[in-house]
């Protein structure tokens, strides 16, 4: 454009593509940006899945073996040694495997998302991408395990002739809520872990405690009446009962319990995103 032109005809400069300013906000910088980085999110997830079974003799067979072994142990301990009553008319193993679908999703998403920042410290300190990608990608990589466990469960249901009721259509909702709760906790723990590595020690202990404090391998019916209210304060109780109702048609959680668990999960995720966004900008400086 020639400079002889009168100034009014000169087009205003286009707005910058990217503007970087100091910000301390409780909201994620740009949700749209997350979408533009979707390819990287998938690649992180794919890397995690590939690495998990690389240089193992059995390879992908572990995806099937791990939930079977897990459910087997719980069945042996709770159904066998402790001899707790399962739901009527159902093998104890089917019952624990259904519980395991929810539980493993919860514990894996919490564990992996919380350690995803520190575990990728090299990347966080040296390359830019929305930091939320790392925890989110762990959810995707955990989906693989969840789908395999589900497939196993479906096979078992077909063999044993158990039919889930109409509640099965609510399964995706329960699953999503479990992921919300787990990701929310993972985001808070992950953001704190960047500065305080203590979290890496506290969290596994807390999760192990939750495994026994939640009705994963036993029914709520086997819990004494007078302590049952305590169980219902645990949001996982509602989510586990809900997911099991949708999968194998056990007793439906009461509306109150379901509502409480839903609200808790959504609230945890929102809090997680806020705390994470607030601390995101400092990650590279302290990691």
């Amino acid at each position, binding site marked *: *454009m020639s*400079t002889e032109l009168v100034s009014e005809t*000169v*087009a*205003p*400069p*286009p707005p*910058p*593509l*990217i*503007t*970087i*300013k*100091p*910000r301390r906000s409780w909201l994620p910088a740009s949700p749209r940006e997350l979408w533009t980085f979707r*390819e*990287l999110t998938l*690649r992180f997830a794919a*890397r995690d899945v*590939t*690495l998990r079974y*690389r*240089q193992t003799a059995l390879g992908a067979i572990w995806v099937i073996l791990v939930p079977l072994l897990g459910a087997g142990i719980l069945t042996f301990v709770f159904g066998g040694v402790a001899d707790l009553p399962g739901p009527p008319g159902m093998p104890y193993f089917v019952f624990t495997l259904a519980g395991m679908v929810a539980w493993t999703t919860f514990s894996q998403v919490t564990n992996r998302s919380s350690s995803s920042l520190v575990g990728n410290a*090299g*990347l966080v*300190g*040296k*390359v*830019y*991408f929305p930091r939320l990608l790392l925890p989110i990608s762990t959810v995707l990589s955990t989906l693989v395990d969840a789908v395999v466990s589900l497939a196993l469960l479906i096979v078992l249901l077909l063999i044993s002739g158990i039919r889930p009721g109409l509640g099965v259509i609510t399964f995706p909702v329960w699953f999503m809520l479990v992921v919300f709760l787990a990701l929310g906790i993972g985001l808070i723990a992950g953001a*704190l872990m960047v500065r*305080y*590595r*203590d*979290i890496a020690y506290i969290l596994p202990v807390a999760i192990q405690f939750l495994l026994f404090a939640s009705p994963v391998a036993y029914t709520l019916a086997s819990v004494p009446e007078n302590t049952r209210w305590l169980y219902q304060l645990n949001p996982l109780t509602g989510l586990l009962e809900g997911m099991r109702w949708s999968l194998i048609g056990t007793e439906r959680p009461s509306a109150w319990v379901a509502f409480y668990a839903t609200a808790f999960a959504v609230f945890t995720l929102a809090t997680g995103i806020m705390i994470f966004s607030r601390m995101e*900008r*400092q990650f*590279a*400086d302290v990691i």
Partner: protein
Amino acid sequence: MSSDIAIRVEGLGKAYSIRHQHNDHVTLAQVALEKAKHPLRRSEREDFWALRDVSFEVKQGEVLGVIGRNGAGKSTLLKLLTRITGPSEGQIDLWGRVGSLLEVGTGFHPELTGRENVYLNGSILGMSRKEIDRQFDAIVDFAGVEKFLDTPVKRYSSGMYVRLAFAVAAHLETEILLVDEVLAVGDQEFQKKCLGKMHDVAVDGRTVLFVSHQIASITQLCDRVIVLDSGGITFGGPVLVAAEAYNASMRSAPAMAERRTTGPLRIDDIDIDPGPVSADAPKICRFSVVPISDFPVPYFVSAHVIDQRGVVIAQCDSRLVGLWLDPTAPQGVTLTLRQPWLLPGEYRVDLFVCSSGVIDSVEGAGHFTVGPSIPYPGGGIDEALATSLVLPDFGYTAEEAPAVSSSVAKPC
């Protein structure tokens, strides 16, 4: 006019907070304990401004050089431009995607194969799948690892590893590219290839921010230069003027800034000829030491000559030549370095005064350039000079030996 701007930086600053308590509270328990003990006291913090009040603009297609000593704020500036960390004040506007050749091999995973790593690393650096597909052959070709694409990179030699890593980064196609010269990696031959690639990028019409310690490569590549010192821009302008400003800043301010004095004896009046001096000429360094009446023992001095890579190539310790100095009298010291001959390039001199420990040290007391000519009758044959640290003063004699008879040569 303003629509052809690629980067605009205004009043940019980055502060790191430094804690002043002797034990940092790094665990939650410690923080909680401290809060419980002193609920009202806020931990004493001081802001350290790694970068402050920095403003500049880069036009589309311009190659801007950024030079400065270590700690001048170069890496902080790059980290802010690449959004690795956020600024404390000011603003950056970017008209285009930013790619960076700052750190090679970030995100490379040893267990993944070469092919998998190219895709992963490419995505991390901001390339789309399509872009990587298109560039894949060029990347592999540049790195020269065709045969090992499906081998996990943990089985690569370190040379192959960095070559592949650099190759991915070098094939970024962003509108704006940040390049750090220390990135030239690998063996001599590959380093040349890296530098060549950087030159290609620079003349390619893309907007480039080229960071370097070496004024020489900046002069070749850049249109304009900014000089960073202690977190601020001390100069911005055409290359040749910048070179002088940079050399001046290297000579004066930093000498005092990086001074560590633990005792009363002080180095003063440093005089080092900045050159260029020819490789085989004696290099002379003069300085004086301010006397002190109550220093009990004689002391010695030392000078380190350091090349551009930071290698100390000569430690001229006065004890070796039997020089001990009297602390009560003013001393004018002259060091003459006759051997070894030095390779052409820039050198830094650090000075030390010591007795039982270091009493005064001046890092970067002076700089000198050695000159482009080579003191050998054969002239400068690049290959013949490629691996020397210094230039030895050597000679060969050869006598034609009598021909070896065939009966001896044969094994019996």
